[in-house]
């Protein structure tokens, strides 16, 4: 139909930010919210007498096409062009921070010594697990020529819990991550805190 623009969200027009950093070369991302319920069945009835909420859990996974550290600089130094927006430091999980880079300042900042940003990059380093903070993953819809942000979902207080790498002769190296989160905000609701002050205890 003439004059109708692409409307729906697809992998091609979605944008993912992790730790406030655009997660480039992400091929897929999934998330799920599970609200466990009990269905009490009492004497004298066939159907459940109620459906009682018991717990709320958020989890999901994402996959990233990997490229290595220093490939960009090496190729460009020999006169080749490289894909747009690739990082000279590679896109490993250790660089999923605003402060990626090998200079001293970036290393100090990415160590978490300063700032209050999430530190996904520490989720697979045993020496940093205890002090690694939670972080957020945000999913947006991109619109061309438009500065307004259209959020779809925000996973709050995330921690990575599993990483799998996979390579074969017919495809690029893919790293698959699984995560758990405390909350999932949608574009039509905020997942508010459910308790009555326990977070302050």
């Amino acid at each position, binding site marked *: 139909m003439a004059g109708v623009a692409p409307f729906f969200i697809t992998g091609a027009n979605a944008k993912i930010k992790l730790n406030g950093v655009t997660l480039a070369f992400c091929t897929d991302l999934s998330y799920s919210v599970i609200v466990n319920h009990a269905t009490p069945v009492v004497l004298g009835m066939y159907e459940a007498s109620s459906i*009682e909420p018991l717990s709320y859990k958020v989890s999901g996974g994402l996959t990233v096409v990997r490229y290595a550290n220093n490939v960009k600089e090496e190729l460009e130094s020999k006169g080749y062009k490289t894909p747009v927006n690739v990082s000279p430091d590679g896109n490993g999980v250790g660089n999923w921070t605003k402060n990626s880079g090998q200079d001293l300042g970036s290393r100090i900042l990415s160590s978490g010594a300063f700032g209050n940003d999430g530190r996904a990059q520490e989720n697979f380093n045993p020496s940093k697990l205890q002090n690694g903070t939670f972080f957020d993953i945000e999913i947006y819809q991109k619109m061309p020529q438009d500065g307004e942000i259209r959020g779809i979902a925000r996973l709050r207080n995330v921690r990575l819990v599993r990483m799998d790498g996979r390579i074969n002769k017919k495809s690029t190296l893919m790293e698959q991550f699984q995560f758990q989160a405390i909350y999932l905000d949608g574009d039509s609701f905020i997942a508010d805190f459910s308790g009555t*002050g326990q977070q302050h205890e």
Partner: protein
Amino acid sequence: MSKRGFTNEKGGLGGVVDSVVDNILGGVSGIVSTKPTAKYTSGARTTLKINNKLVGFAFSVSWRINTEYVENRTIDDYLANELIPTRISVDGTIGTFHIPGQSATAALIQPDVLGFLFHKYITIEVRDSATDELLFYTNKAVITSRMESLQSEQLGTVQLSFKAIGWKDEREPEVPAGAASMNDANAEQSAGSRLVQAGKEAFNKAKGIFGK
């Protein structure tokens, strides 16, 4: 009305007003809806307070109320003549995670070695947060045991056992009408009068047997 969702929340005064309107309408719709809501207690909707302070790191609480009776056994009667109330005892357990620095002793819930003889009773309150109904309350409890467990690949847990003197729940305890006085017209209903009556009946029964 604004959408309160991620990145669509309006800032400024308009956003605040919209949020307030959202909250009010959300609350009203919850009140006037005719649809059923969850009604059974569960761990998620239960709050635990010790010494009037919310215990945010507890994951379980249980209590047992024993109302003990002994049988009044009489000669030539294979049924109990009376169940005589003898004692009420209350005990239970609380399961918690251990946040370093907030042990049961540090929180003044359990006495330490020097305060053991002087430690005050603690209060324990279990309440349904959805209805604000009191599920269990005692103001004279002591921690009688604490078992802590730390294991690889698991969170550390603490199991506290308590004993208490008396309890109340959704209903405030009341003395039954007539129980305060043996001379009252309703005294026949009191436990003491029943005991006297049972004694009389036992005596008369025995007299009937041995009087022949």
